[in-house]
């Protein structure tokens, strides 16, 4: 029983995870094994049990309908086994012999752990059990429905590939293999989630990855104390810095080409089964301003785009807060030509500038969230409501001022330029509005300093989040704001572990 009051309240509504690691071995008594398997599956309608006689020996096949390709299972596994002659073989020998009879194109594995066999069956394998054997043979005949490879939906590129990750991690790994035709690309499977037993595939390039970092990633994944893992986001906190921060040292991508670029810099990526997004560690602050298009276009244009992104980021974080601070406390900063217009507009609205800014940003976030979750056919209606009803009508009615609407519009558009930073930016924007409204530029600068130091604290794998700006690595400046051309970059590739303090 927990000592803490809050922990006791949590105990009242939760149960401890089933993290028993006790192994259950296959029994030589087939009936016992089948009873156990049936107990585990219960009355599941989609689990099929088929009993056959293979040269007079009792053989059971267990499969989960829907997860297996039935035709493949019948033609390539069941038929060859029941038609084969096993008259001289029994028990363990029969199991091994049956495995040999099945076509080489089918994945085969033999285990003495019955729970592992059940997990494999759930994931689309067909199990074969027989009498007097200590083993089960599993044939991989997966045939569950999956989404086709489509275009990326959040990381659009003008000249990059049109492939995005899908939910099946095997397909995702294949997409990377196609890009790295070298054995240095390595993968390691880690099972996460006590109940879901989700597979996380750790990807890296063995010739450049920092071994300590790799060990740390695998260790963190293994020590993730979760019952269910339904997406890569579940694992992000375990891979991130231990220190609470508004930013994250873990990045994500839905593009196989971006993932390939990251692992070629010595980073480690994690593809989680069932998620069309891969995690990248360590992820630096400056990387939020990079995109694959930067490397596919001329360097001067890539530089221009990066500057644009930095400006947009600063706009999206500071603009509303600065506007509130200046209008409330530092009117002297506003040029004479503008001050009368702004004052005139603001004086006609009933709310103080800070509350006006908070209200309009809150409305904007509601509209954005609504637009994100709504069916696409209704999305247009949201835009109309947002633009006409809330925007124009609110100004006409004198509830909001036009300059404030301009600020919100500019902020909203800017925040999507660096979309990967949207979450911290949204929170920081509100913070700066409140702080700017209470203590002017003073508060904003203090808060900004705190944000800087908070970002500087992120250092989960010995590579600070703020690197290569601080600690300053002059060599990395060839691809920071300015990007040199490919001829200059040549064969030299960046090594993330060299960016450490």
């Amino acid at each position, binding site marked *: 029983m927990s000592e803490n009051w809050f922990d006791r309240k949590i105990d009242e509504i939760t149960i401890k995870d089933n993290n028993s690691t006790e192994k259950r071995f296959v029994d030589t008594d087939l009936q016992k094994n089948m009873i156990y398997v049936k107990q585990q599956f219960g009355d599941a309608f989609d689990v099929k049990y088929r009993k056959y006689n293979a040269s007079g020996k009792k053989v059971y096949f267990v499969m989960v309908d829907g997860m297996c390709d039935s035709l493949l299972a019948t033609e390539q596994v069941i038929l060859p086994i029941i038609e084969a002659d096993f008259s001289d073989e029994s028990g363990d020998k029969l199991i091994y012999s049956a495995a040999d009879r099945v076509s080489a194109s089918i994945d085969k594995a033999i285990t003495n752990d019955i729970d592992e066999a059940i997990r494999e069956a759930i994931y689309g394998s067909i199990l074969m059990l027989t009498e007097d054997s200590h083993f089960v043979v599993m044939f991989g005949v997966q045939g569950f429905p999956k989404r086709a490879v489509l275009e990326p939906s959040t990381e659009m590129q003008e000249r990059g590939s049109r492939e995005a990750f899908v939910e099946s991690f095997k397909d995702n790994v294949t997409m990377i293999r196609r890009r790295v035709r070298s054995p240095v690309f390595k993968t390691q499977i880690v099972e996460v989630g006590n109940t879901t037993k989700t597979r996380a595939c750790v990807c890296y390039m063995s010739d450049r990855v920092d071994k300590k970092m790799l060990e740390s990633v695998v260790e963190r994944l293994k020590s993730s104390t979760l019952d269910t893992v339904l997406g890569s986001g579940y694992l992000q906190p375990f891979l991130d810095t*231990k*220190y609470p921060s508004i930013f994250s040292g873990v990045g994500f991508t839905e593009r196989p080409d971006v993932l390939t670029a990251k692992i070629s810099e010595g980073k480690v990526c994690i593809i989680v089964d069932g998620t069309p997004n891969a995690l990248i560690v360590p992820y630096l602050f400056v990387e939020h301003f990079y995109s694959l298009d930067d490397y596919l276009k001329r360097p001067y244009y890539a530089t221009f785009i990066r500057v644009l992104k930095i400006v947009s980021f600063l706009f999206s974080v500071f603009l509303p807060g600065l506007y509130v601070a200046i209008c409330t*406390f*530092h009117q*002297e*900063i506003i*040029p*004479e*030509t503008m001050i009368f217009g702004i004052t005139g507009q603001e004086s006609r609205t009933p709310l103080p500038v800070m509350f006006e800014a908070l209200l309009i940003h809150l409305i904007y976030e509601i509209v954005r969230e609504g637009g994100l979750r709504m069916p696409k056919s209704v999305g247009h209606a949201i835009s109309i409501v947002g633009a006409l009803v809330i925007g124009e009508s609110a100004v006409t009615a004198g509830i909001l001022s036009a300059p404030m609407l301009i600020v919100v519009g500019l902020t909203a558009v800017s925040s999507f330029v660096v979309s990967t930073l949207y979450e911290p930016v949204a929170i920081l924007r509100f913070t700066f509005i409140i702080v700017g409204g209470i*203590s*002017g*530029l*003073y*508060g904003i*600068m*203090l*808060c*900004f*300093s*705190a944000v*800087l*130091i*908070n*970002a*500087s*604290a992120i*250092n989960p794998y010995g590579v*600070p989040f*703020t690197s290569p*700006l*601080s*600690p*300053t690595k002059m060599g990395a400046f060839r691809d920071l704001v300015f990007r040199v051309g490919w001829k200059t970059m040549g064969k030299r590739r960046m090594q993330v572990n060299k960016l450490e*303090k």
Partner: protein
Amino acid sequence: MELTKGKISTFQFFTMLFLSRTLTTVTYLSSYTENIRLSDMLIQPIFRIGIGIVIMLPLYLLYRSSTSENLLDMTIRKSKILARIISLVYVIFFFYFTVVTIARLDLFAGTIVFPETDMTYILIFAIILCCYGAFLGFETLGRSSVLSAVFVIPALIFIMLTLTKKVDFLNLTPIFYNGVDSVLKVSVDSVGQTVEYAIIALALPRVKGNIKKGFFIWLVSQTFLMAVMFFFACTVMGNFASTQLFPFHTLASLAEFAMFGRLDAIFTSVWIMCAFIKAGLLIYLQSDILTTYFGKLKRTTYIIAIGFLTIIGNILISGQIKRFTFVDNSMIKIVLTFITVVVTPLIVLVFRRKEKKKCEKQL
């Protein structure tokens, strides 16, 4: 905690000290130089360098004798009590400068930016954030100081550039107009306001890289900054500068760029960023000393206690100009600096020499 231990680069360390010194420069109060003409302040940084190098000699000799230990580590092997007394002196010294740093910010905000506003909550907010910075540790402070410098240095250059068209050389007066003594006095005052020497004394073993080069660049760059700031204050404002409580703030408010006037907002930003780094570093050092040499409580507890005392100290000074003048006294600073930078290292040096001779005799 994983973030507190370990070394930082020379660049990060001296950037931190540069920002700390920049704060002292930009928050220069005209009351310090009542008997001196502003033109003399142009020559003062050169005197300052000389005095600075001389008073740093004991520390340099001490550092040469052991690069991996600070003077407190050296003392604790000889006498635990003496080490604790010296560490307490440093804690008081750093605490005093933390209070003064925040008090100047409070004075500035309370008299110039928001004269009608109660500054208490901003003050508390600022100290809490500084404690947060200290809590994150030395490495984090080092990293964030470089990032802050990316904003601070261009901002100062920008302000100076916008003032170039307002420079009037007729505002310059002959140097040493009131004699050399007053310039020397101001230089000593200025050295007395340099808490960075004491920071060097304690933190140097936690810095990796070419320290001599870093120290030299830091010394030259801060002297150059002072000279440039005083040059603009003198040539743009003339005698008007001495009538202003914060002359550099007034200078920044005269800066104009295109249709934008009153660039003092940028100046204020520089001030706050530097103050955050400086106060954070000082609080961190206090907590580190207390944890290492007294060590009964956790570092976080010491940070909270120091933060609490800083809040109380500043609330007592806030809005009371007489109390501020009493606390922000040049003589107190000079004495404290002399004790921490000259006397203490000399004592430790003597101890070490004796120890060395004893060892040699035994051999």
